[in-house]
């Protein structure tokens, strides 16, 4: 298998891949499924640069996943699913709710970023190097820092703004 230690690669990359995918599909189980699927494909194809390949495939899988979702329908399903999760959760319901709210807050803040800025930020957060991000997004390495700088500022500002809005609404 071309000298790649797939076991080691799997151990180190799988969590990063799930982390990356989770911010795209916002479903932990689905993110794990897609990460596994990316690894299955990698093992089948044995790419020469498996790590970058995995993230590319993961991004494409997530994109295709998004395409297949009819948001309006899924919202209905999600609402129902979330309700069921709440009911089924054996843990602290308020903690579950708080986690959901945190996720929503992050998601909304990420949604304010441009696609490229968001992608760069998520790839960096998932452990990709500047060179890997540059390759995946078609950027110069020198432009990755600028992209990340912009993305981080926007994320921080948007998250703060959204939290403030929610606080204001809660006070009313």
């Amino acid at each position: 298998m071309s000298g790649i230690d797939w076991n080691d690669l799997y151990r180190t990359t799988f969590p990063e891949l799930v982390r990356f995918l989770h911010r795209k599909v916002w479903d932990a189980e689905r993110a794990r499924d897609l990460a596994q699927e990316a690894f299955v494909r990698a093992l089948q194809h044995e790419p020469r640069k498996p790590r970058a390949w995995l993230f590319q495939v993961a991004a494409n899988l997530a994109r295709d996943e998004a395409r297949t979702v009819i948001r309006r329908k899924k919202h209905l399903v999600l609402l129902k699913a979330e309700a069921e999760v709440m009911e089924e959760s054996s843990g602290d319901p308020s903690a579950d709710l708080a986690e959901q709210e945190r996720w929503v807050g992050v998601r909304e803040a990420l949604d304010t970023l441009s696609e490229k800025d968001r992608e760069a930020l998520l790839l960096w957060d998932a452990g990709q190097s500047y060179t890997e991000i540059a390759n995946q997004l078609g950027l110069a390495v020198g432009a990755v820092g600028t992209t990340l700088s912009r993305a981080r500022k926007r994320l921080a500002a948007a998250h703060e703004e959204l939290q403030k809005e929610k606080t204001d609404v809660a006070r009313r």
Partner: protein
Amino acid sequence: MSHVDDGALHAYLDGALDEYPPAEAARIREHLEGCPACSERLEEERSVRARAHDILGLAAPQVELPSFEELRAYVERTRPAGPAIPLRSYRMRLAASVVLALGTGWLLRGGVPGGLPGDRTAPAVTLESEAPPPPALTQAPAEDEGGVGVVSLLAEEDVAVATGSGTDAVARAASTPIEPTFEEEKAQEELDVAASRRVAAAEAVVAPEPAMATGFDTVTDFDADVGVSTMVAEAPAVRGASADAVELGGEPVRTGDVADGGDVTRADDTAGEAQAGASRGAVATEELASADVTLDAAEKSGAGEAEPEAGDTAGDDRDAVVVEAVPESAVVAEDERPERARSEGPPVRSALEQSAFTALRAPAEEVDAPAADVPSLSVAGYEVVRVTNLGEGTEPLGTLVVQRFEDGSTFEVYHLEPDVPREVLPAPDETHKEASVLAETGWIVLRGPREAAELQLLLDALFPPG
């Protein structure tokens, strides 16, 4: 010495200066050591970076690592005999549309025996829905026959007509595989050496950012007043061309030339060319019914246009594809439609499926299978006023269908391409409300002078009953 920019500061904080050219990295480090202002900025950026990291950490999932041995065993069990070409079927339909459009343009532009430029021979085209796209579409970007370029994807199996040039764009539109190809991998390696070079491989894998400021450019117009029924009846060979059979997914499409442009509304001429005496070709689809639609391939000016016929200064030779607008239910046969995601509730997974490993589905087939709904182009029961392609040059953004209410007012149905955000649409008229949905095929936005709930019902009508 100039200060370092924010990007360099973040690269420094990220420990990524080693990936910069050594001289540039050394300059940045040296400057930061001696510049109080930049050192101060560095601390500000460090704070921003930490804040962003904390925010992302709020949504970090708990990750359990499934067994790699099981994963590998699964791969060995399911390893395909040969290399798969995972392309979603809708991409194949798009590719098929492109092929048909190309073939049609070729035919009508003179590919028919005795026809116009080049005396090209137009072959009968047979498209298998599951066949891979022809190599010429995906591997020969330099070859532009000067004919039809890209692509008006009206609906899954509609005849598509497009203008412009650049088969590379066709290839990009028609094929966005999940997995990078060998060539793409190789191109990426080249990028490691010269990372600043943008490589097509990356473009092919990463969805291009939509041109947010792009205006809408009418590429294809349609005129509902044309007597299509007559044309269909008279479709076979007027100019001596044989009625070549073009099969698309088993639906025969008969091509033939229709007479001079006298009874065909002229296409808008964006280049200001002479319009008199345009002779047109036509494609008539059989087994279609009701509302007639004429799509005029209004060829835009610019590079890649069809070469003008020598000595023909009085008229332009245009291609008109005449399609009888398919009733919504006929755009895709019901039995071909994938079952919709239903709103009764989430799919129930068995305990076995819940296990980390068995959650793996058939890796290629299922992901690449056609999924979810395919909307109709227009709302049944309302007159179609016009169909317009949205986009500029070779970057199609979508399709606009304008339909008429009983009272004469109109509503608009925007079908955006899959990667196009709805924000590209201009703000709606003040008197209009809108309803929208993200479908498999991209955003669909419906706007009109009605309440949102009513528009929502119209939007729902675009989808087959689920």
